[in-house]
Each structure stands twice: as C-alpha cells, then as structure tokens.
C-alpha cells in the first residue's frame, strides 16, 4: 500500500512528473495517489525530497484486527527492558495469528531506539517523536495510544506492568471500552478460537486464572518485567519505521511534570548475585537484622516477601515477587516464605533457590533446590555461626 504523509508533503509537485502512470494529482496542495492506477513502482518515493511518500512492503501488509501492538517504553531515552521482553512474546503471538508485530514509542529523538526495537523483533515501529514527549504524562500518552490503536486496529495490545504502563493501560482500555488483564505470566493464542489466552496468578497467589476478552477489541494485557524471556537482538532483522503523525493537538503536554532520580532505587535487587529474603516466618524487624547479617556474610542483599513489607519489617523497595521486583540471583535463600505463585514468579530467574520453612509442605520447597525444615529464628543464628567459623 502507498501512503502520503500529508504533514511532510510540501506540495512541491515533483512526484506528479515522476509518475509514469499519471496516478498522482494535487489535492489541496498535497500529493494524492489514485490507488486504482498506482502500480507501486516507487518512482515517486525516490523523487520526493521530503520523504513524504512511502510504500508498505508486501510482507508486512497490515492484517486489520489481527496484528499485535506493543507499547515500547522509554525512560530518559533508554528502552525499558520489559518492552524488549514484550517484543519476544509479541512476535510469537503475531506468528500464531498470521499477523504483524508493531511497536509504538513516544518520546524525543527516537531513531536509535526504533532501530533497536526492530532488532528485537518489531516489524513496524511507530515513533511519535515530538518536543515535550520525553516525560510521561497520563493525558498526553493516553491520547496518543488511543489514536494509534484506533488507526491501526490491532487485535492485541501489550504494555509492560511498570509505573507508566500501569498508569496508562487502564486509562486506554477504559476509553476504548475493552478488556485489560493485569500482570500476565503467560500469553498464548487459542488454536481453535484464535483469541488471546491471558493467564495470571490471582487471589493472592496459588491459583492461576486464564482470562479472555471474547468480543471487544483490542485484547489488552500487561506483563511484569522479568517474567517473559528477553529476545537476543539480531542486527540483520529489518522492519519499517513509520513515524506516526497526530492529527489532533496534544492534550496536557504543558502540564507540570518532573522526574526526580533517586540513587537509593538504583541499587536494584535485580542485579544482586545473592539474595537473602524473609517472609512471615521471620516474625519481626529484629529477625530481618539477622537476615541482614547473613546477607552481609555471603556478600548479598536482603529482601522481603509481600507479607514482610506489609508488616513493615522491611522497606517496599526490597520486595521480591510479582508486585515487587523480579530477581535473578545465583542464590536465593527464602527464609520463612511460603512461596505463593506471585512470589515464585518473582524468583523465576534465580539459579539456585534454598528455603528454610517450618512447613514441609510449603510451596517454596517445590521451587527450592534444597532446604531446611525448621524455624528460621533458630536456623539463621546457627547458619551465621557455622559460616563464620
């Protein structure tokens, strides 16, 4: 399909003379292509000094209603890791639907990141590259996302379950009157009905639910960082970068918004090699001091389960699990943590898991390589003493 970007077209009319078939005319001082006559020879694309005419390659014909679109998130110009993970899962879904994987990204100076998205699997990238768009603003981003989805009509739209993604996706879903499933741990296409199967842990863990959006479109879902596999970038992959032009003035672009960076958060659990984590069984903030000693001894970081955070035994930044951080250490020692589905989802990437728990039937032992059946309050001091000697 041939398209003229009316915003880029200056009305120079060079293309008129270039067309061997006389398919181009000027309508309101902009080039207009008669698609009945056009043979997609590309002569006009080459001659246009403003790059306003494009031809979509045959292999990336948009299959309306079936395509997969992901929101690629940039933070200060850097791509969020989860966005690349979404490309990995999105590519598989698009293949199963016999459709194309699209990504849209909002910000400034997006050329380099657009290329990176293609190398990670995006077939068409739609950058919305305008001054003032670097900083996330709910109203502006919602308006842009809805415009893109309305014009592209994808069957599936995926967002990372990040601070921005969790702010944006529900707003978009409500505006488009469609379904949204949070924090999916598995996404697949039903082979018969060809609809998206969105599986997530629910009711505080231990139970999985598969959610569908039977009749509304697009089918929307969010995915936590670290849950899906990160695709290896392949620089030989090619795709189309198709800047998206907003047809309506941007809403809320001048609203005050400032991002303050905090070093404290930069020390993420995600990069720790050894993590000693505690849950309900630790019993007190003092218990966490002991875990801290053990972590120091092993050269690791201390972390907590959701229960421990809710009881304020440890700060929220150190929460591991689906609602906290996903971690991938060499060693994860779970102390007094029963191990809900959500907690286990957060330690999927751990190489070795060791557990200490009084309940021999605690789910954590099914994830653990080895463990001790016992009270952490008794075991940890013994462990510290033994490691010291």
């Amino acid at each position, binding site marked *: 399909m041939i398209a003229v970007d009316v915003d880029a077209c200056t009305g120079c009319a060079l293309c008129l003379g270039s067309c061997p078939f006389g398919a181009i005319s000027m309508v309101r001082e902009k080039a207009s292509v008669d698609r009945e006559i056009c043979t997609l020879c590309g002569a006009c694309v080459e001659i246009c000094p403003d790059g306003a005419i494009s031809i979509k390659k045959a292999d990336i014909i948009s299959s309306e209603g079936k395509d997969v679109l992901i929101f690629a998130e940039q933070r200060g110009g850097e791509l969020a890791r989860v966005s690349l993970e979404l490309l990995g899962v999105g590519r598989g879904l698009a293949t199963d639907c016999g459709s194309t994987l699209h990504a849209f990204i909002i910000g400034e100076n997006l050329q380099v990141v657009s290329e990176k998205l293609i190398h990670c699997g995006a077939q068409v990238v739609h950058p919305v590259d305008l001054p003032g768009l670097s900083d996330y603003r709910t109203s502006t981003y919602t308006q842009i996302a809805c415009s893109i989805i309305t014009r592209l009509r994808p069957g599936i739209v995926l967002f990372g379950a990040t601070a921005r993604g969790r702010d944006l996706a529900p707003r978009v879903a409500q505006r488009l009157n469609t379904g949204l499933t*949070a924090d999916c741990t598995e996404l697949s296409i039903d082979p018969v009905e060809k609809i998206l199967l969105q599986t997530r842990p629910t009711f505080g863990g231990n139970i999985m639910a598969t959610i569908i959006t039977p009749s509304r479109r697009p089918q929307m879902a969010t995915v936590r960082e670290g849950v899906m596999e990160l695709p290896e970038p392949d620089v030989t992959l090619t795709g189309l970068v198709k800047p998206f032009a907003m047809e309506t003035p941007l809403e809320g672009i001048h*609203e005050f918004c400032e991002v303050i960076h905090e070093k404290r958060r930069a020390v993420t659990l995600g990069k720790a090699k*050894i993590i000693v984590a505690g849950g309900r069984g630790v019993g007190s903030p003092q218990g966490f001091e002991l875990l801290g000693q053990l972590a120091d001894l092993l050269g690791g970081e201390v972390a907590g389960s959701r229960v421990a955070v809710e009881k304020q035994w440890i700060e929220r930044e150190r929460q591991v699990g689906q609602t906290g951080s996903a971690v991938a250490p060499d060693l994860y020692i779970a102390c007094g943590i029963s191990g809900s589905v959500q907690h286990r989802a957060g330690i999927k990437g751990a190489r070795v898991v060791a557990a200490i728990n009084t309940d021999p039937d605690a789910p954590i032992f099914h994830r653990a390589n080895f463990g001790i059946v016992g009270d952490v309050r008794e075991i940890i001091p013994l462990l510290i003493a033994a490691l010291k000697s």
Partner: protein
Amino acid sequence: MKIIVCVKQVPDTNDVKTDVETGRIIREGVVSMVNPDDRHAMEEALRLRQKHGGSVIALSMGPMQAKNALMQMLAMGADEGYLLCDPLFAGSDTWATAYALGTCIQHLGLPDVILCGRQATDGDTAQVGPQLAEYLGIPQVTQVRAVVEHGAGFRVEAFMEEGYRVVKVAPPLLLTVSSECNQPRYPNMIQIVQAHRKKKVTVLSAADIGALAEFSGLNGSPTRVKRVFVPAPPPKGELFDGPPHEAVEAFIMKLKEYHLVPS
C-alpha cells in the same frame, strides 16, 4: 473539600482454596478485611479534611457483608458510608467496576478529590483507580507517595522506577495512594462505638444510581474468566529435616556443592 474514598473488602489471607471439582474459589469461612492500601487512602482523606474542612465519603461495591469494611472506615473518621450492592454487579471486571463506581459517584455528585488504594491484595490489578478516573474524565496520579498542598491544587509525588515524579494537579482529580504516603490511624473503642451509633452506611442498588444492565456485572464486563486452575507443583527439592545443627551442616555442604560459598 468533598472527598470520596473507594474501599474494597478483601479476604484476609493469601491462601485462598479452590474447589478441585468446580474450580470455584471457596469463600466460606474466609475472614475479610479492608484492603490495606485503602486504609492509607482514607488516612490521606482525613488529613485533607483536617486541613481544608469538608466531608469524607467511604464508598464500596460488594456484598452486604462489605458493610463491615465501611463501618471500619466510619470509625476511622469518614462522615458517611455508601455500599453499592446489587446482584446485577456480580462478576464485574475492572471495566465494569469502574462503570458502577463512576455511575455511583455521578449520582452522589463529583467530589473534589477521589482517593483509592494503590491496588487490592486479592485482584492485584491496580486498574480500577485509573479506569474510574477515565470514566469520570478527570486527571489521575497513581502510586502516590506524598501529597502536598500547592496553590489551588496539589503537588503530588508518585513512584517511578527511576525514583519518583512530581506532578502538579488541581481538583477534580483521582489519586491512588501507596503505603509510603502515611501511617493510617487505628480507631479506639469510643470511635468504633460512636460510628455504630451515629453514622450510617447507605445501601444503593443499580436502580438507585441509574446503572444500566448492559454495562454492569458479568454482562457488561469485556473480560471473562475462561479457566481457574491450581498449577501442578514441580517435585520438592532435597529437604533436611533432622536436628537443626545437622540440617545447617547439610545446608552449607549444598552451598559448597553449588560453588556458592568457598569450600
């Protein structure tokens, strides 16, 4: 300043059981509580009322027993409680919940500030807040950790992966409050008794607020639960259940085996 706080009653456990035969969640015998983040939302509302005057309404949607959650909010200090309760709302997903709450808020009158908890411990979606803001067409800030008065509006700090962002917003607006924001007060016996004596929870039906059946409950929900299942667990790891000192010794041997501590 008129404030509405949205409250959810959630099971007080992370260990919900399912009926293996039907895949249904067993709710009988499960103790309920007010969703923890919602208590922080109420605390913030009470703080705003103290500063600006006005009233605080606690609003919940759920079964009749969710009245208990609202009574707790009244004891904390809310002026009025409203429970949206109708079989028509059963099976609502987050879209339909936002529709029901939004329709109810329009019926009660749009307040200056709507406060929600960051997320609920049962569904964990964090979606209803922003969806409600969108339904009402008002701005939102999610995962708020501090609210500071600023001119006619607020200067709000909200969680971001890099640290936090500062947003300036003016009413009407919706905030989802995280636990870092404040320390919720606990009502004393007198406040609990007073709430039961002097304050009341008004129960509203779908008809009362003019909610339409086609947008409500399971019928109005864009999503469906196709299947609920308990995943088959992988086999257990090697367990040491002997005397503590022996278990610790075996544990350290394992760490050495995996080259996680120097041997």
